[in-house]
């Protein structure tokens, strides 16, 4: 039997210390050992029973329940004041065979894999690489769990690919403690798994496009995500370039996404007519405190996998001295005017090295990001055509009403089918400011106030936007979700209600959903 350890606590915090948030009980489930239960499917189904037992226990106590993985989200989306479940040890992986696929499936079965919720992006990537496969994209690092990624819409900067949830093709959810409360949801228009295989998961099959799209970015509200079926692709290499180009050119590319006719090209990345190739990834770094007319950009081009290729890892990886970061925060809080000077001094640590070239698999390029102390990140989704204008507005706000201890970046992501995916524009520019977490003083406004001002500025300038679900913001801003998603928010709520019983709807609702108005 899978076993659960529980601990009574008063509070819980995220990895980047964006809390603390209240909590009563923290659960941690470990699977039965392979020696006692050799078959993976048996261990998987055994774990499902254990989760159902915990849900029942929570329900009987009149409490709420929320699962979480690596705690990378920077707000309270992963928290619940009553009971939380750490699922990091639930990391079974199963390749899907052709015989497990639905008769109408158009997927290449060799690209399909079922991963249990707590498998991290790093673990998923390693398992796929052993099979000659790769994820289509990931976030900027690899520590998040797969379930955490899709619940909050984690993205990279793959402009023609999308976010992590966009290659999910099936979801196995636990929505209660009854026998028929284990469900498997996939698109009706694109079936993946055969009924026989789903029966092996003891799951009830629901083939419904609208429900699937709502649950794709479910914010942890659609029950306990137990298993995720993804579509991988044959392994590939990414060639990464870091260049310094004029801000005007960088913005022009952001607006047009026309790399073929751009004035900026990388000689090695042009076609036979000398025109620029379309990159897999494009990212712009903007130090809003600098008057430099140039900025640093990062571009990656997809290449076939060939061995050998240069080792993408340095032998020694240095990280910034923690006390220096602490000193930075203290200076920022008490002498905010020193922030632009500090950012300039730290530019070599914050920004990638210009003219750097690296080649590696996706999992090597987006490798570990070690914990470096409390951090914040605010991230807006904006139509890429509005990206430069929004950048200038938010940069000005940060200079005029700040300064704030962080710098901006722009990444670009293809549209998602998720009902309330924040990558809702044809190509979404994710305009983000990342930095060290500070405390409000008489001299520097709070993160919440800064977040509120950014929302106000975008609204005043009629720039449609969304917000990254896993990052900092003023989530209580009036009618924020309606403004961002309109009727899609109501559709998401309706799908959630259609899936869950009344009791389970409440059990899987947390403060984040209530604050944003997505749950009563």
């Amino acid at each position, binding site marked *: 039997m899978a076993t659960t350890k529980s601990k009574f606590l008063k509070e819980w915090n995220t990895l980047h210390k964006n809390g603390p948030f209240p909590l009563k009980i923290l659960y941690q489930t470990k699977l039965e050992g392979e020696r006692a239960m050799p078959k993976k499917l048996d261990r998987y189904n055994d774990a499902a029973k254990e989760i159902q037992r915990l849900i029942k226990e929570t329900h009987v106590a009149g409490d709420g329940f929320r699962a979480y993985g690596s705690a990378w989200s920077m707000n309270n989306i992963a928290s619940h004041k009553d009971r939380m479940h750490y699922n990091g*040890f639930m990391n079974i992986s199963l390749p899907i065979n052709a015989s497990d696929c639905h008769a109408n499936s158009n997927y290449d079965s060799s690209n399909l894999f079922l991963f249990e919720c707590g498998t991290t992006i790093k673990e998923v990537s390693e398992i796929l690489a052993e099979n000659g496969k790769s994820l289509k994209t990931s976030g900027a690092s690899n520590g998040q769990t797969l379930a955490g990624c899709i619940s909050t819409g984690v993205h990279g900067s793959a402009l023609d690919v999308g976010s992590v949830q966009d290659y999910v093709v099936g979801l196995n959810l636990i929505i209660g403690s009854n026998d028929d409360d284990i469900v498997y949801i996939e698109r009706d228009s694109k079936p993946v798994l055969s009924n026989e295989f789903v029966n092996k998961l003891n799951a009830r099959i629901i083939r419904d496009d609208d429900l699937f799209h709502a649950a794709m970015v479910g914010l942890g509200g659609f029950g306990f995500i137990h298993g995720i079926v993804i579509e991988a692709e044959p392994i590939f290499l990414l060639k990464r370039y870091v260049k310094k180009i004029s801000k005007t050119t960088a913005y022009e590319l952001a607006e047009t996404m026309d790399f073929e006719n751009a004035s900026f090209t990388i000689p090695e990345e042009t076609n036979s007519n000398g025109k620029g190739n379309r990159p897999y990834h494009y990212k712009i770094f903007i130090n809003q405190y600098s008057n430099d007319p140039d900025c640093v950009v990062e571009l990656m081009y997809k290449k076939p996998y060939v061995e050998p290729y240069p080792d993408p890892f340095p032998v020694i990886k240095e990280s910034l001295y923690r006390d220096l970061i602490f000193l930075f925060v203290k200076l920022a809080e008490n002498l905010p005017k020193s922030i632009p000077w500090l950012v300039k001094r730290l530019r070599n640590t914050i920004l990638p090295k210009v003219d750097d070239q690296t080649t590696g698999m996706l999992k090597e390029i987006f490798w570990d990001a070690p914990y470096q102390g409390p951090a914040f990140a605010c991230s807006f989704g904006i139509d890429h055509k509005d990206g430069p204008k929004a950048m200038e507005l938010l940069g000005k706000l940060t200079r005029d009403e700040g300064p704030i201890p962080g710098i901006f970046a722009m990444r670009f992501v293809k549209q998602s089918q998720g009902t309330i995916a924040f990558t809702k524009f044809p190509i979404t520019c994710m305009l983000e400011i990342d930095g060290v977490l500070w405390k409000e003083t008489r001299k520097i406004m709070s993160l919440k106030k800064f977040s509120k001002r950014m929302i106000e500025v975008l609204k005043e300038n009629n720039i449609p936007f969304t917000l990254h679900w896993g990052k900092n913001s003023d989530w209580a801003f009036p009618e924020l979700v309606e403004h961002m998603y309109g009727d899609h928010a109501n559709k998401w709520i309706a799908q959630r209600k259609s899936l869950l019983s009344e009791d389970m709807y409440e059990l899987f609702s947390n403060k984040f959903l209530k604050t944003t108005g997505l749950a009563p």
Partner: protein
Amino acid sequence: MKPFKYLSIAIFCCILTSCYSVRFRNVNGAPQPDPFSDRDDYYRGMAVVEFDTVISIKVSSEDFTYLIKEKEACESGKLNIIEYRNTFGGVLLSAITFGRKRKVKVKYVCEKPTN
């Protein structure tokens, strides 16, 4: 007074330069997590095993091997990260005892078990 001041500065410099950590980390594999841990350092969220001890070895022994075994904080019995710390006290102890007593200050994190 002056010689004492210079001696103090020299000793302080020795202590500072002989106190350092070296960390090794696997490129592959994930570190074993510990959601109940509240560490606030490099190892935040990880199951860390620490030992800080003095090992006595025979004059005839050249070195010693510490065995990493499977236990709750190291379910896989395989290493993912290891860090050793050298201190002035440790160097001094080894020198005074001609290497028979060695201070060992190590932190390690095992691989997260796979399924």
